[in-house]
Every structure is written in structure tokens, then in C-alpha cells.
């Protein structure tokens, strides 16, 4: 080692420790995405915990991930397929319904769990610091495992009805992601509001119910008049459900413009939600 290097080694300063600055909050704060990224291990454990707890002490366990869409499909097939004889875009009605119920079941569960995530784990809010956003995020991500399981059910249904899978199925992760964002966007709003107003807990089931009606789960989005389609696309789940049907049915309506509206709507709602969450999170431990 040269003397010069020695000299510089002697001069080298210890690695700068991160400095935590604590001051009274003022107005809107920037999103600290770096901190969030740094907490990916904790997110992993929270997701894992969510998955492990989900079906603890249930007799059927993870089978519920299959049973929920399956049973709803059976009911829908009888009521909407047989009795009401709704149009099913050229698909057998059970497959038509299942293609929508797979993402919908995920969405409904993830939305409810994300919305209640902070209140359900309030003992963590008052006892330890971590990026609060991890809680609704973990709820939405954990549900994706159920979604993947349910998706294989959809593939089995395709095989059962002799429908050849197309290359469009490769788009599934993208639509799954859109479903996750669609659940998370209202989820973070509701989670933050829930801390202050427990009314939210009662609003969520109602909201999910209404949302089901404005989403083409039981019916085809083809019944919505053409000129209202872009507006209909403001419901991101309409885009997700249409996307799932588009993947399996060659004759399903194209998902162009309304899907773009869905993506934009989610992006705006989610971004605004993240800022709102960030503003609210400082007082979580005070008001929860």
C-alpha cells in the first residue's frame, strides 16, 4: 500500500449514518418511496403473515380461494344465465361469469382488507414505527395469491368447456396488476379515513355491493351503449373484467379506449390516495 493511500485511508470518514429528522408536520409531504422500497423485507413478512392467518383454523383452508368464485358462479349461472338469459358474449355462461368472478372476488376481498388494515392492526400503529402504507399494500398483495389460485380454476373451466387457450392469456399478469391497483386505490383512501371515522368499516361492504352492480360481472359490458363506454371505463374494474373476458373469448368486445380510461382513473385515484394517506398518517397513532 502506498503512503498516499494510507494517508487517504486515515482521512476517510465513517459512513454517514442516516439522520432521522423529527419536526411538526406541515401541509402536504412528498411520498417517501425510497423508504418504502427499503422496507421490502418487512412487506414480505407482512404478506406472509397475512397469508398464514387468512385460513388459520378453517376446515377447508385455501380451498376457499376456489370455493368463493365457484359457488358464486353457480348462483349466477342459475339466476342470470338460465332464468334471466343474459347475453354471455358467445361463451358458455359459467365460463363467462367465472372470468369476471375470478378478478372480482380478489378485488372485493382486497378492497375490504386494505380498507380495514390499519384499524385491524392498530396495536402496531401505536407501538412501532414503519411505513404505514405497508399495511394496505400487504393486504392487496396477499390477495394476489388467491387470485393466482382462482385463475388456474378459470383455466380448468376453459379446458372443461373445450375452449382453446389463446396467446392473449399472457396478458393475465397485467390485468391482475390493474385489479390490484384498482383495489389499492380506494383501499388507501378508505384505510386512512377508517382510522378517524369508523363509519368506513360499515361503508365498505355497501360500497363493494354497489360496485358489483356497476361492473360487468353478471352481465356483458356490451349492453352499455357505445357512447357511454368511456364513462363506464372510469370504473377500473370494468376494464379488468372486460380484459379477463377478452383473454379467453375471441368474440369479446375490444378493450381499447375504455381500458385506457380505466388505467388513467386508477393512476389518478391511487396517486391522490397516496398523498392523502401520507398526510393523514402522521396523526394515525393519535386518533386510532
Amino acid at each position, binding site marked *: 500500500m502506498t503512503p498516499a493511500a494510507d494517508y487517504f485511508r486515515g482521512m476517510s470518514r465513517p459512513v454517514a*449514518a*442516516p*439522520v*432521522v*429528522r*423529527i*419536526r*411538526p*408536520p406541515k401541509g402536504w409531504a412528498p411520498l417517501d418511496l425510497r423508504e418504502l422500497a427499503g422496507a421490502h*423485507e*418487512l412487506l*414480505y*413478512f*407482512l404478506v406472509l*403473515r397475512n397469508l*398464514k*392467518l387468512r385460513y*388459520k*383454523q378453517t376446515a377447508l383452508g385455501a380451498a376457499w380461494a376456489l370455493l368463493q368464485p365457484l359457488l358464486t358462479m353457480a348462483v349466477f349461472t342459475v339466476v342470470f344465465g338460465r332464468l334471466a338469459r343474459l347475453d354471455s358474449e358467445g361463451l358458455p355462461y359459467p365460463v363467462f361469469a367465472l372470468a369476471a368472478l375470478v378478478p372480482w372476488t380478489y378485488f372485493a376481498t382486497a378492497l375490504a382488507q386494505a380498507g380495514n388494515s390499519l384499524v385491524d392492526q392498530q*396495536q*402496531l*400503529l*401505536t*407501538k*412501532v*414505527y*414503519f411505513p404505514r402504507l405497508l399495511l394496505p399494500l400487504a393486504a392487496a398483495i396477499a390477495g394476489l395469491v388467491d387470485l393466482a389460485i382462482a385463475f388456474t380454476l378459470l383455466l380448468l373451466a376453459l379446458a372443461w368447456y373445450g375452449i382453446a387457450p389463446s396467446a392473449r392469456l399472457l396478458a393475465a399478469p397485467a390485468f391482475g396488476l390493474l385489479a390490484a391497483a384498482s383495489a389499492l386505490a380506494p383501499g388507501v383512501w378508505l384505510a386512512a379515513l377508517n*382510522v*378517524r*371515522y*369508523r*363509519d368506513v368499516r360499515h361503508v365498505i361492504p355497501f360500497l363493494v355491493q354497489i360496485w358489483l352492480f356497476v361492473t360487468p360481472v353478471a352481465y356483458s359490458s356490451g349492453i352499455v351503449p357505445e357512447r357511454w363506454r368511456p364513462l363506464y371505463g372510469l370504473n377500473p374494474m370494468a376494464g379488468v373484467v372486460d380484459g379477463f373476458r377478452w383473454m379467453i373469448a375471441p368474440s369479446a368486445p375490444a378493450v381499447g379506449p375504455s381500458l385506457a380510461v380505466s388505467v388513467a382513473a386508477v393512476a389518478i385515484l391511487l396517486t391522490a390516495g397516496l398523498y392523502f394517506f401520507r398526510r393523514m398518517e*402522521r*396523526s394515525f*397513532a*393519535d*386518533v*386510532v
Partner: protein
Amino acid sequence: MSGHAVIRIEHLGKQYQIGHARGPRTLREDLVDLARAPLRRRNERGATDDGRFWALRDVSLEVQRGEVMGIIGGNGAGKSTLLKILSRIVAPTEGWATIEGRVGSLLEAGTGFHSELTGRENVYMSGAILGMRKAEIERKFDEIVAFADIGPFLDTPVKRYSSGMQVRLAFAVAAHLEPEVLIVDEVLAVGDAEFQRKCLGRMQDVSRGDGRTVLFVSHNMDAVQRLCARAVLLEHGRPIATGATTGVVAQYLARAEAPSSPGAWIDLSGVERTGTGLARVVRARYGSGLDAAAGQAYPDGPLTIGLTIEAATSCTIASLAVTLYDLQGTKLVNADTIASGRTLRLEPGEHQITLRIPELHLNPGVYLMGFWLAGRLAEVHDFIPAGFELEVVSRRAPGLGRAPADDGLVTCRLELLDAG
């Protein structure tokens, strides 16, 4: 790097709105408030600080690298609020603070524990939420399990554990947390004495060995004195003394608002009583004789009681009893001289009596002491159900044993005779 402030706190304050701080609001309440707001402003003009209070005010402090700083004070003094602000759980209302380095806080035992998960799963979950990296947990996993001493129950759900095992596992995780700055709230208050000693020893190692900075809140003055070179005393949210621990602790003990102070005569002439009045307890005093407890009663310690009894006529007292009630009115102790068979002959005038309870089997808390004087024919001369409040404080035991507040009223020894 000595003399370098790792924690700097300047004029830190936290204000709460009473009623707002407690419990979640409903939307309806906020809407009603909103509707009423213009009216109220008119009605209450000039009424400042309506329903607000400062849980913490004007706290300025510097903690050097490697220093273990104790934070002491009575209930509601603002200790926990300070720790919560520094842990970034709540935001301050005014002032600022900076902390250099990774901060780990330990405000309860078993943060992140879930009763449905196994011991193994909980170690990972709790470790992660307390700020440990996955690799770090994996590296220390065996050490944590050995420290907790839970043996074959590692893969059993924690809900099947005894409470002692749960606490041990929770602390084992916490004890292996190694951030640069550690914030600890009253964690030594639970767990058995042996395990507490183990935790305390570990904390001592951690702070001495690696120059880690520790903020430590405790009601256990012995632990504070052992661990901390410096301490700060908070009262009503404000720091009233900072400096060498011994002096600050002495100041705290001197200021502690005891319901009645040991050693001093308590005038009982005004208290509620029944009886013939032929003999009456007019004054009382008590003390445990333990300076470390400032003469206060402590669990399993002795209690000496001095009484001044005033007799109106000559009479014989066959039963002289000391009673202790808890604040809910449950009679816990009725110690009666009748058991000894000794009687007390009183002539008119004042008499000094000294009684002694060799071992007071009560846990820390506030109790009501009363007296009972009865004659040979069981005629009651004087009955005072509630003479004064007696505080039993946590003792400075060599083992640092301090029972948790909810661990029952009465102390009881337990011996393990056969471990099969």
C-alpha cells in the same frame, strides 16, 4: 467520537385536544362540529386553549453517543409521549429533534406478535417489524431461541404458550435488536425476576460494548440507577431536572406525591368512624424502615404502625385490628391482636402503641388503611374503615423483581417442588 450528540432535542412539545385524543371520531360528530363551528367561535371568543393540553412541553436534551439516558417521572409526566415522538409514532406539535443512526424502539413486549402464529413465525415477524433485516434475524435466530428458553415449543402457535413463555420469547427478540439508538419503555416491568436480570444484563452489555445509545424509561429506580449515568425527570410534560442519575432519582423520590408520607403523624380526628368512642385512634403513622423506598411500604416488606389511642375511661382492648382495603373496597387484610390473646389495659388519656406487620403481602398500589378497637365483650369502641391511603411501592430488590401492575393484589411465593 465521544462528546458527539447522537440525539438532539430542541423545545419539543406535543399538544393533545382532550376528547379528540381519546377514541375515534365518527363522521357525524365531525359534521355536527363543522355546523356548530361558526356559532361556537362567537360564543367562546377569547377562550383560548379550549380543551387542549400539553402532554409534553419545551423539552430540550442532548444524548451523547454511547450514553444510556434514563427518563423518569410519575404517571402522565410525558415519558411515553417523548418516546413515541422520538420513535416517530406520533408527530410533535412544536420543536424538533434529530437522531443519527438506525433507531429501534421497544415500547411493549411482543410488538408484531400474533397468537395464531408459531414461535418461529413470530420471531421473524416481530424482528422484522422492530426493524431487523431478514439476514440479521436468520443469523441470530438460534441465539434468540436459546435466550427465550422455549425449547420444543418453537413450532407451536404462541396462543398455546404460557404467558411466561410468551413474554420470554417477545423479549428475546427485542433483546437482540441492535440499532445504533435504542428506545426502551418500561420493558423490565414484566417477566420473572430471573429473566429480567438476564435482559438487564444484556442491555448493559449492549450499551457498554458497542457504544450504543439508549433511552430508557422505567419506574424501577434500581434499574435506572444501574443502567443510566444520566437521567431526566419529567413532570407535567416538562423536564424539571437533568443530570447525574443519583441526584435526579433523589429529586424524583422527594417530589413523588405520596398519598400520605411515611413517618409523619396522620391526624385521624376528622375521619369517619363508628363505635362507643370510649377509646379512639386519634393519630397514626407508619413506615417500612427502608430508606431506598423512602420509608414506603413495599411488597413482602415489614410495616411498622404507630398509633395514638385516646381513652375516655379505663377500658380493656381485647381486639386491636389493622385493616387494608383496596380502592374498590375489597377487604384484603384484617390483622387482629386477638389472635395473640394479649389484651391492652388503657387508663384515661393518650397511649402510644406500636404494631408491626412482619411481611406485607401486597403488590404495589394504593390501599386504604383502617383500624378497629373492641373490648372484651366484643363491644366496638372505635371502627375507622378508611383512615388514610397507604401506598405500596415497588421495592428495590436485588433481583430487580418488580411485579407487573395487573399481576394481582397479593404477593404469593411459589416453589417448584418436582419437575418430574
